């Protein structure tokens, strides 16, 4: 007698944005649809340097499972990822490398700074550690903690999802964004 097969019928569906449905068509806002699609399929680049990288490994494993949120494919190539997750201590020697990785990412791109060291240098207030990655690249969400628990990393990821879902399609080409990048010396 074989074990009875169980099918998962309770699949959670994302709510469709405000729309007008007709016979064979649905009219809605492009921004909302694009935002919806993007936020549920963010592919991260795990820039894991030290201990926070271990917490990320736990987040990506089966118990805390970041793949539930759409981050199924971790890409280590900046050309193919949406979100740069910087996890761990960045030393001053590593700074230009991180900036190079950020510059190679294609728009739209977001940055998540995980852990105290990436946010502000953390406990390492010394001549060799970069006191926060926002000295070299623009950051969208900061996750504090030393190291943050996987739930905290997921919370940060969900905030990124909120940002992605509500972003205007014209943001990246506008002057304000260009001025912000110019502050970091990025064209």
């Amino acid at each position, binding site marked *: 007698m074989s074990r009875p097969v169980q099918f998962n019928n309770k699949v959670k569906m994302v709510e469709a944005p405000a729309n007008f449905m007709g016979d064979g068509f649905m009219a809605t806002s492009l921004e909302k649809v694009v935002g919806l699609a993007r936020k549920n399929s963010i592919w991260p680049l795990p820039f894991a340097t030290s201990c926070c990288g271990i917490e990320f490994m736990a987040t990506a494993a089966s118990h805390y499972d970041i793949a539930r949120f759409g981050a199924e494919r971790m890409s280590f190539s900046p050309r193919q990822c949406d979100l740069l997750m910087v996890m761990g201590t960045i030393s*001053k*020697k590593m700074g230009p490398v991180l900036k190079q990785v950020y510059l190679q990412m294609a728009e739209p791109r977001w940055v998540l700074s995980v852990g105290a060291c990436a946010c502000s240098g953390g406990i390492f*207030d*010394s*001549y*060799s550690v970069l*006191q926060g990655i926002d000295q070299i690249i623009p950051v969208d969400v900061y996750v504090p903690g030393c190291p943050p628990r996987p739930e905290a990393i997921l919370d940060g990821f969900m905030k990124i999802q909120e940002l992605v879902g509500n972003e205007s399609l014209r943001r990246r080409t506008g002057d304000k964004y260009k001025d912000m990048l110019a502050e970091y010396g990025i064209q």
Partner: protein
Amino acid sequence: MALTNELIKTRLVEKFGDQLTDWVEPYGMLTFTAPKDQNLKVLQFLFDDAELRFQFLTDLQAVHYPARKGEELAVVYHLHNLVDNVRIRFKVFADVTKPDVFSATALYQSANWMERETYDFFGVNFLGHPNLIRVLNVDEMDYFPMRKEFPMEEQTRVDKDDAMFGR
């Protein structure tokens, strides 16, 4: 016959005489001081001697003693005899204004990066080193962080509260 500290000391004094000073044995590890220009000769002797056979350079580091005027930087060599399992340590002292020490890279390949690190952090100039540039710090750095006069903390932060940091 087991290789004891007395035997090592006798052999070294036989060869170098009064030049080696400051014989101490902290925690059983024989330690002595050699003059700066003799460091390669001492290393070579300890390497070649059939009985001593100190053919493994465990560590090469420096210490900054600001109180010892005229010989502030001490370069410390830790050697290991793999056959008899005996370790010794010897130091050479150099003046901080002219910290030139002969490089041990001709004898030990591992001394290459260890000397680069010592140069990076203390400023000891190793003569004869094939590629003496900074290894762990940023290349543009113009000071030597591990010397006692340089501060450990990052100097460009503006948000640190003096009261909380005991200043």
